[in-house]
């Protein structure tokens, strides 16, 4: 199956999941469909020891297109909502949870912008490595919405309740340095060396799992 919005490759035992709709790598409906295919059909059969998620070009991702998202919700709203949820949203949650539950170290390598659903995807990774100058945020409240793919569940566990309220209700942007201070990202690196340093970290972790006495 050929994917158009995601580039998937394995290099030296490390899986690279690259969001591939430059310039902003906006998470379109095709992206979410392909995330579903990737996590159902491709990743379970692939052999990798660590996973890195990043965006092609200058940005991680600006998140979902909220106009398109709202239209899809209206189109797919089950008659017995809220007992039943729109299928495509359940599928997105499932694919994000698949990343969360992978039995290998997972990294989000973040630079440029990382908003909304993109930040939610990053929060489902075990480690977040962030380039200087990155801007992050949950802007949903300014569109009359809220995070819908785990943001309001994952964030308070990381930052505590007060900061989570502050960031999600106000919807304000925050910097890489702030994200580091609040524990949202684990390391800040130079923009140009982001991928290289993340790969190095992944390699270190992979090799720690190899017993030294085993030839």
């Amino acid at each position, binding site marked *: 199956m050929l994917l158009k919005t995601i580039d998937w490759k394995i290099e030296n035992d490390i899986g690279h999941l690259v969001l591939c709709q430059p310039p902003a790598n906006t998470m379109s409906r095709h992206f979410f469909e392909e995330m579903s295919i990737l996590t159902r059909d491709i990743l379970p059969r692939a052999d990798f020891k660590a996973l890195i998620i990043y965006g092609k070009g200058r940005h991680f991702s600006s998140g979902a297109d909220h106009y398109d998202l709202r239209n899809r919700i209206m189109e797919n709203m089950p008659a017995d909502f*809220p007992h039943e*949820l729109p299928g495509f949203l359940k599928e997105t949650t499932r694919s994000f949870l698949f990343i969360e539950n992978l039995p290998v170290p997972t990294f989000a390598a973040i630079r440029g912008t990382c908003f909304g659903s993109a930040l939610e995807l990053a929060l489902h990774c075990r480690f977040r490595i962030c380039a200087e100058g990155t801007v992050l945020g949950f802007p949903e409240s300014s569109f*009359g919405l*809220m995070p*819908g793919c785990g*943001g309001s569940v*994952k964030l308070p*566990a990381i930052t505590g309740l007060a900061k989570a*309220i502050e960031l999600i209700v106000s919807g304000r942007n925050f910097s890489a340095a702030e994200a580091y201070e609040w524990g949202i990202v684990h390391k800040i690196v130079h923009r140009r060396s982001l991928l290289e340093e993340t790969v190095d970290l992944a390699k270190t972790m992979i090799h720690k799992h190899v017993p030294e006495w085993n030839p």
Partner: protein
Amino acid sequence: MKQHKVIAWERNGDIGVLSIDNPPGNLLEEPEFMDRKWLEECLEDKSLKAMLIKGTGRHFSAGADMKLLKKLAQDESVMMKEMAAGKDLIRFIEQMDIPVVASVSGVCFGAGLEIALACPIRICSDNALFAFPETNYGIMPGLGGTVMLSKLIGPGKAAEIILSGDILNAQQALKLRLVDYCVPANEISDFSLGYLEKLTSGRNTEVIRSVMRSLHNAQTLPFEKALEEETKLFCTLAVKSMQNEEE
């Protein structure tokens, strides 16, 4: 301004201000420090976007009135009933679907600290003092203090604070993340109100309440159930925002 037991209520724009109003120490005369129905009536206005809890005058609250508490303890069944009602109030504040700030200046002890811990956001003045002095009197926090403190700062630090009964100053409280912000004493009122105004300005109440519900779910429900509830809240908002645009 509305008054009930030792509590006063007033509106400041979209923000409700609840004052522990029994100066100078703002002692809480009984574990059931206000009537829940009364509070629910105060909160009934759906245009309300946030709530602030503070003490009248220089102190937040020195906690329970020990003399009255001792008297109350003579009848076990009355005591149990009062404690259950007090806990219910703390739980109610903890689960509110609007942001609640505890704005703490001066003394914040015992049941006063339990009220502050029930608030998801805590702001204190640089002269604030925090303690659970209960163990000095052979008792312990009774309105959920042991549970809330342990959850917030870990069981080790919580044991230290509760068993020692020692007083923490504002800097120590900030370092332990017992409080989220510490500001100069003469700025705390403006800062706390300004914080909530800035937080909620331009945000409609449906969004605020949905976000708060989901954040509470994250604390109380199993992970995957909380995710499912978040998606429900999200869809409901999406539908409403579409309808609003059509109107």
